[in-house]
């Protein structure tokens, strides 16, 4: 175990694994058939959405039940922009900015109340969002929804549509992941972690919990907007149903199951969001919701760190016998889960924890 860990610590191993990852991401769209590519692209879309939720919830500890609203908003902005024949770059920027501004305004009010008020306010977003989208039918096409085709492969690329779309998702999603990773590992990430850990301590260190909560929520909304744009790239159609309450809850469950406060966990969460409903539908469509709830509760009981903590937990079990005392946290605030998260990965970064630990990870 220790030799494996020290191997992972070496810089060249990290660079090599990074290079392998990049090459893999570049090659994957060429390898599979259209259906697999479409599924992978959808996983990418929802991985970005889960990542956004992770910024506000996993890293900053503010429960948000409305993340899907920002995905829907970004998707609608994209659809509207495309229907008006705006430049696609402009559309992308608007699809990021408009949800971010909406998130900022909501957070400015919601973050004023401490504790769970953000959860209690954001639960309204999908529930208000659906009738609102139906009402503003000039922009949204009402209950019918809107479709927008702008992501067909250009002729010069020589790619099929599904390959082109997957490349777009990998490119935009990859940049989003990279930027978010840097954000949560730097100064802001440490501030988020302190706000999450103890607001009084944060205040005493000159970190305003209010400002950082608002910041985290705004960043999450912006990432939600990005995922909305990608949603339109891949699915090319959105309706009020996209941002339903059930989807919002599913997104939150995916984040917890993938691993709160973890970059890799966001990818796993995206995969969970897309794949597991397909599986449970095969078993019995009537049981889907029941199974999803049961899986979420089961994970909270036996694997509070999410799927991403699995390798570490397994190693620990083998190493120290049954020395695990799972703390009831989906995210690493307690010593216990922090240590789970710290050792669990090679090339993927662990979540930010007290400053000393984050600093030595800066150069990874």
């Amino acid at each position, binding site marked *: 175990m220790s030799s494996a860990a020290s191997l992972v610590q070496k810089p060249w191993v990290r660079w090599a694994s990074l290079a392998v990852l990049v090459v893999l991401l570049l090659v994957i769209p060429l390898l599979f058939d259209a259906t697999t590519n479409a599924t992978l692209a959808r996983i990418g879309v929802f991985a970005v959405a889960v990542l956004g939720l992770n910024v506000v*919830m996993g890293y900053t500890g503010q429960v948000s039940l409305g993340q899907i609203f920002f995905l829907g908003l970004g998707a609608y902005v994209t659809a509207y922009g495309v229907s008006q024949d705006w430049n696609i770059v402009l559309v992308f920027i608007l699809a990021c900015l408009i949800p971010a501004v909406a998130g900022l305004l909501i957070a400015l009010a919601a973050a*004023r109340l401490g504790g769970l008020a953000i959860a*209690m306010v954001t639960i309204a977003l999908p529930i208000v969002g659906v*009738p*609102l989208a139906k*009402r503003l039918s000039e922009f949204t096409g009402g209950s019918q929804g809107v479709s927008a085709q702008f992501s067909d492969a250009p002729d010069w690329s020589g790619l099929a549509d599904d390959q082109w779309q997957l490349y777009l998702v990998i490119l935009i999603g990859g940049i989003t992941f990279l930027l978010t990773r840097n954000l949560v590992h730097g100064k802001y990430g440490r501030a988020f972690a302190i706000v999450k850990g103890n607001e009084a301590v944060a205040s005493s260190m000159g970190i305003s919990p209010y400002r950082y909560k608002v910041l985290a929520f705004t960043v999450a909304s912006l990432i939600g907007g990005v995922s909305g744009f990608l949603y339109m790239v891949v699915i090319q159609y959105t309706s009020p149903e996209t941002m339903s309450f059930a989807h919002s809850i599913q997104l939150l469950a995916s984040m917890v199951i993938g691993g709160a406060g973890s970059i890799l966990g966001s990818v796993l969460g995206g995969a969970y969001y897309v794949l597991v409903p397909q599986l449970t539908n095969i078993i019995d469509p009537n049981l889907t*919701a029941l199974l999803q*709830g049961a899986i979420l509760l089961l994970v909270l009981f036996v694997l509070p760190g999410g799927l991403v903590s699995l390798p570490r937990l397994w190693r620990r079990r083998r190493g120290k016998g049954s020395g695990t005392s799972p703390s009831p*946290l989906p995210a690493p605030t307690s010593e216990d889960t922090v240590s789970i998260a710290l050792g669990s990965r090679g090339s993927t970064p662990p979540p930010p924890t007290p400053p000393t630990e984050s600093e030595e990870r800066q150069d990874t």
Partner: protein
Amino acid sequence: MGTFIQLVFDGLSTGSIYAALALAIVLVNQATGLINFAQGGMAVLSAYIAWQFTQWGLPLILAILAAVVVSFAFGALVERWLMRRFERGDPDTAVVVTIGLLTLITGFCAWLWSYNNRLFPSLFPLETVDIFGAAVSVRSIGTIAVLIAIMLLLQLLFIGTKLGLALRAVAINPQSAAFSGLPVGRLLMVGWGLAAVLGALAGVLVAPSLTLTPGMMDGALVYALAAVILGGLSSPIGVVVAAWLIGILENLAAVYVPFIGHDLKIAVPFILIFVVLIVRPQGLFGRKVVVRV
């Protein structure tokens, strides 16, 4: 004027349903510091249980009473076997647990009773009575009366009985309560059971007009949470007043503000919340929480 009075009464009636659910949320929050997002789901389950009893031939009132008893037991069991593990930990985790519970219960109802709408018989006759020239339904008045009765009973329980005193002691300081020999665990179970009973009443009161579906209370839960924020978590009276206010305002806005209409009236409490949060962050009636470091 007739329409106006009618709208106010209907608003009070829907507000009473939100109030019952909101009181359940406050009760759980006071006892355990959690927000139970599954409260609405548990209420739906209770309503389904009552419906099932009526299908088995029980008279409606007995079916409701039976559902209330089952709900109490279910609430207590949820506290003992599910929530207790998470009560001392991070409140965010506990919230996620209640959301998992909500998904589980909704899924269970959908699996057992399907997503089809079920007609739920009304406890009150469908007649209307004339009040100041407005036709007000007996159902509205009955719902308001039930809520007022609930409030009086709760007040009686918490102020007038030993059990209420013990429950309050646990809510204020569980450790001291345990030191003075109170069975804290069992009292928490009673608190959750009572909350489930309140939810059950809200469920059977709202089911006749909404028809029974697994997602029936999602909207009501949002309204109840809005009432909890507006009224302040520490003030049951404030929560009830806020719920009534929300019920009346959304009804009036639906009719008198053309843009809002009936489909967007759920936005009303949140516009209200935005205004209140900016002016008075602790809620209309709440106390400011001071945290000791």
